């Protein structure tokens, strides 16, 4: 187990950094199915996990991969899968199961140009709304968008921590450009990597109610083989985990699942503000595009525009309150993202007509350049 955490400075591929982040977070089970541009995560896990007594299993498809990481997590392992858009579309039903059963796990989507097979080798950021709404029914999800290779490492660790703490699948919403980028990564010594673990029952099996919660709304999780005889079902269930088919029970359960995330949103939500203090124009961006946005904002400042950057780290939950707050400060929002304007819709909703919202969008295949964003900043008001 000595080389579980590769402490030191590396020049590393984004996808590899993600794999190393998972390993550093304690992930010892990876089930996956190859897909460009996420394959390198699987390949790295296939080489690394057996060295650490962990298991890499290549499943027959993404449906199976997602089901397998849920099963292994019920057995107590920290588990992950990685895919791209087409594979994510296949995982959605079981992501819903993970949410309903409250099983911690991490799902990586290295986004590529889409829809359909689209542009397998080229960048896209078009799966943002899918991450939030792709599975049927109502739920809340946590999704993180790394902008650098370092963040591929850091946010993967964070994704595991959030998954464990809130007992929920967490999506690492990367993109091809970050996944296929090679940069310096500093991996800290293990003792400096903070790890959170899922809540576990403190009562004996007779007293254990698998889905009873305190005000945290997060039920402690008994693992298979511990004598708790847990029952988990994707049907609407009561505190014992038993199916109960009526509207009241559903309201109780699903409301708690929603509130579990919403209530903790203030501690989950993360973003970075650059030059926002006195900004009159706020660029909102995330993932690879946030880097272009950063250059654009700096350049705008040089040109005398009071621009700032709000970089989303958690794309979901979306920092609505912060946008609402900023609506009182700035005169314009510019949302830059490689899609038709998915987060722009969220900004529009939160800005609620207080401030105009412009967008810089491409549909995939090429990065948005700093100049393209800069141009939008010059048009203060649409």
């Amino acid at each position, binding site marked *: 187990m000595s080389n579980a955490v590769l402490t030191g*400075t590396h020049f590393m591929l984004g996808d590899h950094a993600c794999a190393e982040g998972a390993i550093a977070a304690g992930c010892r089970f990876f089930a996956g199915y190859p897909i460009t541009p996420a394959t390198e995560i699987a390949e790295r896990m296939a080489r690394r996990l057996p060295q650490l007594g962990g298991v890499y299993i290549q499943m027959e498809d993404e449906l199976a991969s997602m089901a397998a990481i849920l099963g292994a997590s019920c057995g107590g392992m920290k588990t992950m899968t990685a895919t791209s858009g087409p594979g994510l579309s296949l995982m959605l039903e079981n992501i819903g199961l993970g949410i309903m059963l409250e099983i911690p796990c991490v799902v990586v989507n290295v986004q590529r140009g889409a829809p359909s097979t689209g542009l397998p*080798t080229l960048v896209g950021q078009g799966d943002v709304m899918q991450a939030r709404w792709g599975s049927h029914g109502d739920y809340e999800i946590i999704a993180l968008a790394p902008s650098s290779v370092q963040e591929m490492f850091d946010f993967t660790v964070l994704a595991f921590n959030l998954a464990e703490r809130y007992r929920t699948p967490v999506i690492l919403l990367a993109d091809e*450009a970050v996944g*296929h*980028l090679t940069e310096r990564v500093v991996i800290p010594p293990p003792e400096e990597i903070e790890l959170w673990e899922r809540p576990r029952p403190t009562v004996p099996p007779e007293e254990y109610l698998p889905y009873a919660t305190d005000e945290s709304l997060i039920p402690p999780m008994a693992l298979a083989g511990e004598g708790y005889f847990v029952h988990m079902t994707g049907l609407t269930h009561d505190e014992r985990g038993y199916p109960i088919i009526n509207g009241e029970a559903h309201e109780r359960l699903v409301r708690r699942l929603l509130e579990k995330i919403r209530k903790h949103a203030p501690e989950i939500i993360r973003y970075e503000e650059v030059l926002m203090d006195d900004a009159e124009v706020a660029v909102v961006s995330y993932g690879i595009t946030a*880097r272009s946005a950063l250059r654009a904002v700096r350049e705008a400042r040089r040109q005398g525009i009071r621009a700032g950057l709000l970089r989303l780290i958690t794309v979901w939950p979306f920092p609505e309150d912060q946008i609402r707050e900023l609506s009182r400060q700035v005169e314009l929002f510019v949302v830059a993202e490689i899609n038709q304007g998915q987060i722009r819709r969220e900004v529009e909703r939160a800005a609620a007509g207080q401030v105009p919202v412009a967008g810089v969008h491409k549909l995939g295949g090429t990065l948005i350049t700093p100049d393209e964003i800069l141009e939008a900043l010059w048009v203060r008001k649409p």
Partner: protein
Amino acid sequence: MEIQFAGFGGQGIILAGYLLGKAIAVYEGKSASMTQSYGPEARGGACSSGVVVSRNPEELVDYPRVTRPDILVVMSQEAFSTYLPRLKPEGTLLYDADLVNPESIPEGVTAYPVPATRLAETEIGKRIVANVVMLGALVVLTRVVSPEALREAVRTTVKPDYVELNLKALEVGMAYAQNLLQPQEV
């Protein structure tokens, strides 16, 4: 600072970018990003890699794709035609003298022919290290990174059995480039 490598799949174009990026980012502590691109072919298609070095060593490279390279290294005719127009007006061009026929080079560009593939074959006996020969030449001709950082990158990257070979290739490239510069210096 932007450096672009380009050629065919199989020439080690990606590894060249990686070694250079690693030397800069890890062994010289600057901030550098490396990107790569290839076509749908698993083999033999066009292939390129790019390294962008941040002005400020503390700061992440903001836009990591090469847009207008300061330095262009090409190892195929196709790569030459594709990438030359993007080279900065005052940029530096290295090309494999046996694979590329540089019909016309814009004024302002400093161009160095480096017969890397031939040197690799004749001096090392392994065509496969042409990329590292090219890197050796690059380090001398452009000083974009120190030779020692590049050596360290080689040592920590290639499989142990091949380290010697690659270090030798570096020296071959450096020596060749030194010669190239000599007349100008004298």
